[in-house]
């Protein structure tokens, strides 16, 4: 394989994992945008989506349905969990406490979900049945596997759909209105609490689709699988500018590409001084550099808002 083909296939790898980060970052950023809360449990929604996939694929197969249809129950379960977390934990805290109590509640919720699923499923990795079998695409020397194609296509479709939803639909406009000014939104007749609930449902549902994309390539689930994914997606959201939907997409794809290219080339470039094991450190270092130059992220708007 020539160097150029290797480079292109690394780009595709980066876009594949970047699409997962982007969808998770979208959920982060939508929830942050509407209630100014960093929902640290958001990464764990991926894990819940992945377990739902694992459990529902055999059940659906028994009914003669294709495995990918498991994304429907996974999305519904994640949306439901997201709404329950908001209604039972975040909303009461938001109404009584301050943003710090809400943040700590989110961290506690993350631990609860991880430990809860460990109690149910055990700490071991479990295998997710094959979800799709799409043949590898071969262009000359370049080979792109089916999982990569599925992830990138699904990621792009979801990102475009979300952007259109938020920009064009009545509910999407209500979300933007509530994220900016809750009092004025009430005066317009917007059901503010309903809109917040809907945002949680959609953001959490996106985590289920991210879970599908992830499991297509890495068919394994564990209670803590959402931790690192969630953290990377959080970095992606901040890099892109938290609260900005296009920012989450750009940030997610950027983190995916940086990670993939670092893993592939950092050893060669530095003559083996820095190995690919440092790829996560490099991702976070880039975040720090970008934030030093542009504190509001690549596409975020400067804001005098406390986090």
């Amino acid at each position, binding site marked *: 394989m020539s160097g150029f083909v290797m480079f292109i296939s690394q780009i595709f790898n980066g876009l594949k994992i970047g699409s997962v980060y982007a969808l998770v970052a979208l959920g982060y950023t939508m929830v942050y945008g509407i209630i100014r809360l960093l929902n640290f449990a958001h990464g764990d929604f991926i894990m819940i989506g992945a377990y739902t996939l694992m459990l529902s694929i055999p059940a659906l197969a028994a009914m003669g349905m294709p495995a990918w249809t498991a994304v429907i129950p996974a999305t519904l379960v994640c949306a439901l969990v997201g709404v329950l977390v908001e209604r039972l934990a975040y909303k009461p805290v938001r109404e009584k406490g301050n943003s710090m109590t809400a943040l700590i509640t989110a961290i506690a919720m993350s631990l609860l979900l991880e430990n809860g699923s460990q109690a149910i499923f055990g700490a071991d990795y479990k295998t997710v049945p094959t979800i799709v079998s799409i043949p590898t695409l071969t262009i000359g020397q370049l080979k792109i596997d089916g999982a990569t194609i599925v992830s990138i296509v699904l990621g792009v479709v979801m990102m475009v759909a979300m952007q259109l939803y938020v920009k064009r639909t*009545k509910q999407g*406009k*209500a979300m*933007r*209105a509530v994220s*900016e*000014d809750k*009092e*004025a*939104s*009430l*005066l*317009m*007749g*917007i*059901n*503010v609490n309903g809109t917040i609930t809907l945002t949680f449902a959609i953001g959490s549902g996106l985590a289920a689709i991210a879970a599908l994309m992830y499991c297509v390539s890495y068919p394994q689930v564990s209670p803590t699988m959402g931790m690192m994914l969630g953290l990377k997606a959080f970095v992606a959201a901040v890099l892109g500018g938290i609260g900005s939907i296009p920012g989450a997409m750009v940030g997610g794809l950027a983190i995916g590409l940086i990670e993939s290219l670092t893993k592939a080339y950092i050893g060669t470039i530095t003559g083996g001084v820095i190995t690919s094991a440092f790829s996560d450190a490099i991702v976070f270092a880039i975040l720090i550099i970008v934030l030093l130059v542009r504190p509001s992220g690549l596409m975020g*708007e400067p804001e005098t808002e406390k986090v």
Partner: protein
Amino acid sequence: MLDIKNLSVSYGAIDAVKDISLHVDDGEIVSLIGANGAGKTTTLHTITGLVPAKSGSIMFNGQDLLKTKANRIVTLGMAHVPEGRHVFTRMSVQENLEMGAYSLKDTSHVAEDLDKVYTYFPRLKERRRQLAGTLSGGEQQMVAMGRAMMSRPNTILMDEPSMGLSPKLVKEIFRIIEKLHDEGITVLLVEQNAKMALSIADRAYVLETGRITMEGKASDLLHDEKVRKAYLGA
């Protein structure tokens, strides 16, 4: 008609509004004047459900507003132009105006109503694609008023529409308020600019530290010795 009886509102231990009663008949412009902190904005916020009342009643065309959810009040025909405009800064002028029509079930008049707002405020038409956050204060006031008009209200509450505007713009805004009144819209106008408010209002109430201390025909209050001394600087 809007009928407020024995309304009290408090923020924790602080009583912001103490046992006030006032009414606004259909087609009237009624002004609520008073110093900063007198409870004018709190009164409007309680009417549209942004702040809960402690006691009393607010009836609007037979509906008990204290039992109506805040986001349902606009559907009863009451629009509120809040103090400080509260436009959606990251939306375009036109999107802001369209948000004003959010509560309408029948959307067939939205285009026509937009045209009407643009004839009232031609400057907004020129800037319809611009983000509302990039507009001047006067233009944002126009957006806030146009947005309220888009909900097809029969009653508009206006909170300090003249705040921070040049005398020329203040005149323009007040001319629009009179125009809305001529169309049959009822207006409850909160103003620190008492002279302007009393000059267009039918009746007025004077609010001092949460209590109504005077009420009457606006033209009478305009010539009242105490009002002139306290609020008109004469």
